[in-house]
């Protein structure tokens, strides 16, 4: 593999992994915030437990997702200096604004939400999760402005070898950023909705074989998850489809991106079918819980929106090649001329690290999803830890 291919692979692994974590983070943050709002307004203990249970799964996923994002931010400067050399003014601004306006606030407030559970009054604590949620979407917006510029460069002017901002308004209202934002938001609600519904269905099915399950808790969670999926499924297709007209196919529309597009639509059709069934059944609680095949289907649908997100991403980003900025900057002209060995070692090392992170995330989400609401450590006074022997000096 050439150094260029390795650098591209490294970025693809970083961004692809990060995107999968972000999909759940974005959607689940909103569902947790909505649940917490209802819990605070009604004072309902079941809803309060739902906030802690789903909130903990959100926090686990966030923590692993954030570290993949760190590498992504610094990778532009590390491996793609051509991007900042030629498109510095245009490309840097949205990334800088993302860190300042969105991520900085999001992370600061998330720490407050996690660790300040019993230190803030409940309205302040509720406000904090809403700030976290909204800044997460602001963050997605700025990243998509940078990404949308790569796909559909607007609002810039060529001055010699460099791109300069001609119209900040055009840059920040690029339809190649706004439409994907709506598309990804709908996708995130599908991911989080089917995540919540799938986990709930697993617990409800256990109840059928006589195991002790908090029926009320998971019935409500199933409803929230299914409603989220039902609401999001059509917008995800509409905002996806609208992009075909404004985003040109890249010169090198490959077989791979073609297949990815087909698979994305197949995954969507599956989710659409499940969502229609859910819409019919949602008004009838008894019927919703009785349908054995339905609960099983909901369970196995959990990974489907993830697959759709991944295929959609491959389609969009793969279709841009060989351009880094469509029609403006070639990928091969932007990569840092690194030694092959260093790039190979980094790519292999990062791939291994990210594989471990992905596995750890799946194992932990599975473990804490299965343990049920009473095992959530988030927001409860920690039990005194027995002092096991630890290496200490």
């Amino acid at each position, binding site marked *: 593999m050439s150094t260029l291919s390795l650098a591209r692979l490294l970025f693809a692994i970083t961004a692809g992994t990060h995107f999968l974590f972000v999909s759940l983070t974005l959607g689940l943050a909103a569902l947790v915030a909505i649940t917490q709002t209802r819990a605070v307004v009604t004072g309902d203990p079941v809803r309060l437990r739902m906030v802690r249970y789903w909130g903990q799964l959100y926090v*686990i996923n966030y*923590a*692993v997702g954030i*570290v993949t994002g*760190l*590498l992504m*931010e*610094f990778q532009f*400067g*590390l491996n793609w*200096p051509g991007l*900042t*050399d030629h498109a*510095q*003014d*245009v*490309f*840097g*601004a949205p*990334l*800088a*604004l*993302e*860190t*300042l*306006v969105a*991520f*900085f*606030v999001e*992370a*600061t*407030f*998330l*720490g*407050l939400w996690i*660790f*300040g559970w019993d230190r803030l009054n409940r309205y302040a604590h509720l406000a904090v999760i809403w700030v976290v949620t909204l800044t997460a979407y602001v963050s997605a917006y700025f990243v998509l402005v940078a990404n949308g510029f790569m796909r559909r460069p607007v609002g810039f002017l060529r001055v010699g070898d460099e791109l*300069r*901002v001609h119209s900040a308004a055009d840059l920040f209202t690029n339809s190649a950023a706004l439409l994907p934002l709506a598309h990804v938001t709908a996708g995130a609600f599908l991911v989080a909705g089917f995540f919540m519904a799938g986990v709930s269905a697993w617990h409800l099915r256990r109840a059928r074989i006589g195991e002790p399950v908090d029926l009320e808790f998971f019935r409500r969670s199933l409803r929230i998850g299914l409603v989220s999926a039902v609401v999001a499924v059509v917008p995800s297709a509409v905002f996806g489809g609208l992009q075909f007209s404004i985003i040109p196919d890249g010169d090198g529309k490959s077989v791979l991106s073609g297949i990815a597009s087909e698979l994305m639509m197949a995954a969507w059709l599956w989710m659409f079918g499940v969502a229609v069934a859910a819409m019919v059944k949602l008004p009838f609680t008894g019927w919703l819980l009785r349908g054995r095949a339905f609960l099983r289907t909901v369970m196995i649908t959990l990974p489907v929106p993830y697959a759709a997100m991944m295929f959609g991403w491959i389609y969009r980003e793969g279709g841009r090649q060989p351009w880094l900025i469509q029609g403006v900057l070639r990928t091969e002209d932007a990569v*840092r001329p*690194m030694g092959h060995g*260093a790039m190979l070692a980094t790519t292999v*090392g990062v791939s291994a*690290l990210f594989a471990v*992170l992905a596995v*750890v995330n799946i194992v*932990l989400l599975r*473990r804490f999803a299965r343990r049920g609401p009473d095992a959530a*450590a*988030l*927001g409860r*006074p*920690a039990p*005194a*830890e027995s002092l*096991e022997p*630890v*290496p*200490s*000096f």
Partner: protein
Amino acid sequence: MDTLAYALLGLFGVGYFVLGGADIGVGMLLPFLGRDRRLTLAAIAPFFLGNEVWLVATGGLLTALFPGLEAEVFGRIWGALVVLIAAWIVRDMGLWLRGRGDGAVWRTFWDGATVAGSWAVAASWGVAVGLLMGGGAPLFAVTSCGVFALHGAVFAALRLGTHTPLARRLAPVALVTGVPCALGAGAGHLGRTAPYAAGLALLLVLAWAALGARRYGAALASSGLAILVVPLLAAVNLPDATAAEDAGLTVTVAFVMLPLLVAAQAWVWWTFRGRVDGPSYL
């Protein structure tokens, strides 16, 4: 515009070293800070996420305001930066994950990740800045590990109310190893390096004296200023650069946001201002 852009970059960089340096130092010293690890980690738990975003913001500002500088500097310290980011990831995973498993093996493994990752972060800062100083990379790693560890020890003493002797022992260690190593690393431009090494020596003595007098606030201020030897020596050894032509938008938004960002962080500091009274979620 250049001055404002430099001021922003400096502010966020300094913010990262002063705030993040404390939680990195606590991670380095974890094996020395008592057997109840959950209690020790509660000292930094509410802060570390909000501390590391100062560096993320510094990176974002660097891309937007000084892209040419970023491309050149990242090229010179590429290896150190890759190790730094990998170590940062390993360390954060250690912090986030150790409390999510039950077995002693699980906890020991992730504690190991926290400790090793924290040392590697401190050392790669030293190597990165050492490379900018002109070749004394391994030497300056000794200096940076010393100031990170001391800052962490002082912070732990303040938050936990214990382990003051550890911090007091670390100050002279950082003095006798760190100051000569800083001078050695910058031997090529001694005129540029020496004032910072002298300042470092003075601050380390002050930290030692303040710890002896149990003046924790003064000790933390001294160790917090001492850690700034790392970014300051990086700054004076950076190649000259002018801000990007279109930096105005980013600079304006940054100055508008700044009071909000500081207020958000201050809310966190205020909420967790007291001594640690029990283990946290970590």
